[in-house]
């Protein structure tokens, strides 16, 4: 585990800017790195996350592709197997579904199927999550599918600082990695050091130390957990918040240590609860900290329905600070 010290460099930029500048620095420092995806080139990406990169590095390093997610991932996989270090973009995490074979059946398995002789330094970037009224096909949270695939690595940064460090680690990793940005966080600002730095994959971050209960929160849920911590503090509950940052590999040790300390845990994610990554985390906690738990590991996630369009439904659908606080309270009132 690591505990975030107040960032020494106080430069404040947005999550989306952090993504863009990191890509620029990676392109500038490693000639084997290139980017490919829909609208990422001339236009700079639908969220302008790739703005200026094509102009600076040209059409072969920041490549506009047809609408063809299977071929986009295949382009990255084939190039990675040849020793390049591709970054391919899938725009929305929902589109993982059309590219799933190339991701989970090809890229993830190539090394093992080939007896270790292949190396696949491929990075896939995408944007997940709800909150923009984008409805059922543009709001996906598919972390649970991806952690079930041996050969992949998956990160879900919850702030601009981590986004940069995790993205650098993924691009430099020699395995297929997936970096999920949350589309509702693109504008959120935070301190981000200049230059390239790595945040090791598989190392969780203790966002807030506390004694009474632990919340393991993923991606955008981290900021809601922090709000919940304030509410609960008034009630005398001192919350510890853990942001795994990397979901595969997963830092079980940091989470279990916290569970053994606080004896109460709630896992929070945006995906639907059933079959969500919270199930895996809860299962691991009860396996490793069974004798320390004073209550069942709680799980907060979306209810079992597709993401609805209307704001009144969507805002109820997406877990928030109140849901988290309620789940924590429930671990005390039994």
């Amino acid at each position, binding site marked *: 585990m690591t505990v975030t010290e107040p960032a020494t460099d106080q430069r404040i930029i947005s999550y989306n800017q952090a993504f863009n500048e990191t890509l620029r620095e990676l392109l500038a420092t490693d000639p084997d790195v290139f980017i490919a995806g*829909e*609208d990422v*080139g*001339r*236009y700079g990406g*639908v969220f302008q996350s790739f703005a200026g990169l094509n102009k600076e590095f040209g059409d072969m390093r920041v490549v*506009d*592709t*047809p*609408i*063809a*997610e*299977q071929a986009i991932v295949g382009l990255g996989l084939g190039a990675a197997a040849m020793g390049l270090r591709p970054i391919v973009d899938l725009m929305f995490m*929902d*589109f993982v579904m*059309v590219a799933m074979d190339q991701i989970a059946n090809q890229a993830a398995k190539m090394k093992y199927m080939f007896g270790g002789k292949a190396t696949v330094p491929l990075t896939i970037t995408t944007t997940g999550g709800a909150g*923009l*009224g*984008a*409805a*059922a*096909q*543009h709001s996906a949270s598919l972390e649970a599918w991806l952690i079930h695939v041996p050969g992949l690595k998956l990160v879900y940064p919850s702030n601009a600082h981590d986004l940069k460090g995790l993205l650098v680690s993924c691009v430099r990793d020699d395995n297929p990695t997936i970096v999920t940005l949350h589309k509702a966080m693109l504008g959120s600002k935070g301190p981000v050091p200049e230059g390239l730095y790595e945040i090791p994959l598989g190392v969780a971050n203790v966002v807030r130390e506390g004694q009474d209960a632990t919340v393991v929160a993923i991606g955008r849920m981290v900021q809601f957990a922090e709000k919940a911590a304030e509410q609960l503090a008034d009630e005398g509950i001192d919350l510890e918040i853990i942001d795994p940052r990397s979901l595969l590999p997963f830092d079980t040790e940091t989470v279990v240590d916290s569970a053994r300390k606080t004896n109460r845990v709630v896992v929070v994610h945006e995906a639907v609860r059933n079959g969500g990554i919270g199930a895996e985390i809860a299962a691991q906690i009860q396996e490793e900290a069974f004798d320390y738990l004073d209550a069942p590991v709680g799980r907060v996630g979306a*209810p*079992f*329905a*597709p993401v*609805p*369009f*209307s*704001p*009144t*439904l969507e*805002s*109820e*659908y997406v877990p928030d600070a109140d849901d988290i606080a309620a789940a924590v309270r429930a671990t005390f009132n039994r």
Partner: protein
Amino acid sequence: MAATKKAPAKKKAAAKKASGGAKASAAQIPKEVLLDLHRRMVRIRHLEESLGRISTEGKVPGFLHLYVGEEAVASGGCAALTDEDQITSTHRGHGHLIAKGGDFRQMMAEFMGRSTGYCKGKGGSMHVSDLDLGMLGANGIVGAGVPIGVGAAFANKYRGDGKVTMAFFGDGSTNIGAWHEAVNMACALQLPIVFMCENNEYAEYTARDRVMAITDVADRAVAYGMPGVVVDGMDVVAVYEAAVEAVARARRGEGPSMIECKTYRYYDHAGVQGLGRTYRSDDEVEEWLARDPIDLFEAQLASSKVLSKAAAKKVHDEIQAEVDEAIEFAENSPWPDPTTDLLTDVYTEAN
């Protein structure tokens, strides 16, 4: 042996050039059909323009892909269908639903996320649908509507009900796998379907020539063994005539065909913030705006004494009033109630 060459098909005369010619054929089309074509286009134009306007007032959640500029395609295509036929659509689906007879009130209410909308506010712009009208839904996934359309056409053939399906899709969608699989399957099974391509030369913000090495999407018809034609997508009569022929062919059980309509979207890929001039040249935009499908057709209708300018204006005013009324209806409609609506409609309960 000498290998048998397969040279790429000759490029056809650009549709825009071709469209310069007089529309002789329009003469043979019954007046009421011409007026119907006009009405469908105007209905699309007014709903979309008004929707775009209120979206700038923050009244429309989510993404908004407007059909303005492409009215002749949906109108000419759907006018060749009966109410019983089906269509499948795309992320840019409002025009298709309107042309198939969509109800303004339920559309506006849906786009604004109200419980009185077509989908009770659960779908929004990208999933608006009306199965009673045979409109099998807008679709958020590029190309994904086409396999669904092939399934609908299979049902038509399976039942021998004489209905046909028309699948609308954009030029960019023809580069994705689902589109290819579905088109090939329809041809292999000889299903009653018409593949209607809206080639507006862009996929989001990327020009067609950067993502495919052909100019005419219709060249792809050859790959599946079906006829393909290129028509001027700003000429509603040209679209209608091609659609009538393709639909008749499908009804006769002779299988699928493809129609490529050269058209243009006026606004940016999404929303109404500008005309996308960062990636489209002013000249290009002006050239297309100068060939507005409604203006062109109204000039033709006036000169052929089918519809005077004054009468045309009356149509516009009527329809605009209907749009305004629909917006008012939507704004006064209740929001979905999370406590009762969030978890319904996930499954069909056994009865």
